[in-house]
């Protein structure tokens, strides 16, 4: 499968199965468009009114050489790496099932996950990706506070309470979560714990105690913990800044951008905006952060589809590591993104990519999380095809110690998958998540971006389509545009360094 597009003056061709990326001239671009529709003579005839015949022939030779090298129109059965010879329950988890998580269909993986043309080669061996085989868990999202000191109406966590009662995780539960992660992590050395909520700083001493506990035993078990913290910033003080700088691999700071945009949603219980309170604290935290990463992370909605202006505002404030995400909400919400917003958002991403290149040239670069892509040292093929890991290698833990497949599903008790005492108890539900990958989703199999997104977010797919094996079509379009922009940036930098 090949995807080709023009952006910012570049003709870019992606070969999906091999991961190859080519920058081509106009003639080769047109040849590739015709390559599977016409034979050599047909292509020459079709293009000879606009290009020299000898040029067409030599360009065709170049294209055919790329095909021979498996860098263009390559075909690989990546699905076979996971499924060959194995049988898995293919979950059809939907709102209409009597017991959500019940597995409605059981097909062989070969039937479910063969490639679009029905081919499933037998030459590739099976299931090398360890987490897939071993029920290894390597990451936990600890919901240490099901409460919040802000009252943001767009919050997917329902102002931190996840449609339940306010609750704080006690340190004993946090320690059990660390023990649980070590016990279920198999031979995996790198373990991740994200302190999340609600607002985790409302349970700050517990966070510090859990980190200290994990640090006290990680060497004994041959593990290395990476902690992250997501905060609204209201309670940041010197202690938080010093501790996160020392212990948190990454800190996510919630800021939506311009003051009026941020304060539209991010208000306290009294309805007062939080911008003026949190920005100085974020700036101080970033100023003193001398290791690890941080992201100033915003949410854009229908009410600020000109989100590039919010990113520019963050840059003006002095932040250089920025993430800006589309709102996750029900389509009927007044701030939900609409189909009419789509072309505006697409153009915003393109202008953002141009801004990144401009600032890079001027010696003042910044990072935009969703444009960060490492073409040479990115994920291996196994990582790209197993999906996001929700419900299998990644679980969310509630204050009471219940386990959920993902932090975005904690508000739905029917997705409770187990607890820290008994481990995963809903194995059919776990199997349903285990099959959430690009080859189990009809829409993904034919998508050029599947090896960049690995099937995307299962929770978003469920909320938008009612099925874990559905897709969030709107989110998919945004993702594809972001990848096109990210690759264009890489192409532009490669050209700049070569000239």
């Amino acid at each position, binding site marked *: 499968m090949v995807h080709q597009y023009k952006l910012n003056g570049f003709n870019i061709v992606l070969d999906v199965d091999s991961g190859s990326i080519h920058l081509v001239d106009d003639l080769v671009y047109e040849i590739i468009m015709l390559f599977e529709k016409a034979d050599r003579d047909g292509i020459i005839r079709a293009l000879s009114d606009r290009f020299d015949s000898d040029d067409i022939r030599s360009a065709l030779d170049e294209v055919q050489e790329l095909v021979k090298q498996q860098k263009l129109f390559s075909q690989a059965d990546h699905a076979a790496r996971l499924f060959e010879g194995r049988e898995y329950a293919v979950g059809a988890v939907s709102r209409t099932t009597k017991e959500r998580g019940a597995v409605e269909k059981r097909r062989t993986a070969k039937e479910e996950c063969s490639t679009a043309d029905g081919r499933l080669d037998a030459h590739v061996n099976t299931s090398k990706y360890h987490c897939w085989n071993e029920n290894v868990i390597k990451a936990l999202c600890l919901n240490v506070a099901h409460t919040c000191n802000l009252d943001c109406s767009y919050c997917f966590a329902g102002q931190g309470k996840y449609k339940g009662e306010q609750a704080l995780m006690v340190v004993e539960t946090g320690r059990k979560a660390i023990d649980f992660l070590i016990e279920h992590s198999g031979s995996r050395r790198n373990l991740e714990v994200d302190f999340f909520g609600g607002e985790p700083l409302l349970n700050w001493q517990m966070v510090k105690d859990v980190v200290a506990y994990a640090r006290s035993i990680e060497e004994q078990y041959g593990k290395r913990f990476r902690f992250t913290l997501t905060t609204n910033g209201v309670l940041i003080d010197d202690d938080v800044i010093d501790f996160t700088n020392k212990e948190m691999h990454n800190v996510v700071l919630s800021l939506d951008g311009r003051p009026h945009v941020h304060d539209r949603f991010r208000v306290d219980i009294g309805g007062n905006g939080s911008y003026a309170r949190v920005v100085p604290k974020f700036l101080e935290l970033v100023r003193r952060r001398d290791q690890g990463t941080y992201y100033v992370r915003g949410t854009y909605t229908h009410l600020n589809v000109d989100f590039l202006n919010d990113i520019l505002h963050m840059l003006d404030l002095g932040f250089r590591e920025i993430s800006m995400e589309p709102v996750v909400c029900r389509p009927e919400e007044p701030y939900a993104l609409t189909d009419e917003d789509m072309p505006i958002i697409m153009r915003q991403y393109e202008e953002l990519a141009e801004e990144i290149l401009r600032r890079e040239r001027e010696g003042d670069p910044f990072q935009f999380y969703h444009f960060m892509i490492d073409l040479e040292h990115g994920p291996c093929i196994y990582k790209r095809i197993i999906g996001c890991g929700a419900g299998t290698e990644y679980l969310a833990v509630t204050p009471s110690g219940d386990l959920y497949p993902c932090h975005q599903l904690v508000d739905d008790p029917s997705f409770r998958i187990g607890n820290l005492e008994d481990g995963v108890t809903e194995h059919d539900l776990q199997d349903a998540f285990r099959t959430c990958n690009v080859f189990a989703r009809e829409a993904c199999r034919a998508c050029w971006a599947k090896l960049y997104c690995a099937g995307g977010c299962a929770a978003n797919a469920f909320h938008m389509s009612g099925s874990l094996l559905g897709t969030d079509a709107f989110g998919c379009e945004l993702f594809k545009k972001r990848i096109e922009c990210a690759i264009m940036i*890489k192409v532009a930098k490669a050209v700049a360094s070569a000239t």
Partner: protein
Amino acid sequence: KKRVFTLPTRQLIDGCGECQTSCQSAKTSCVANQVCEQERE
């Protein structure tokens, strides 16, 4: 003069599991942004 410029990329045609989980990075729109742990080390 050059019609095709091919960028250096990781060939796909591994699996240690030590890399970061997709959603543990910067939580709502999940692999392109990930880096291979072995390459990182």
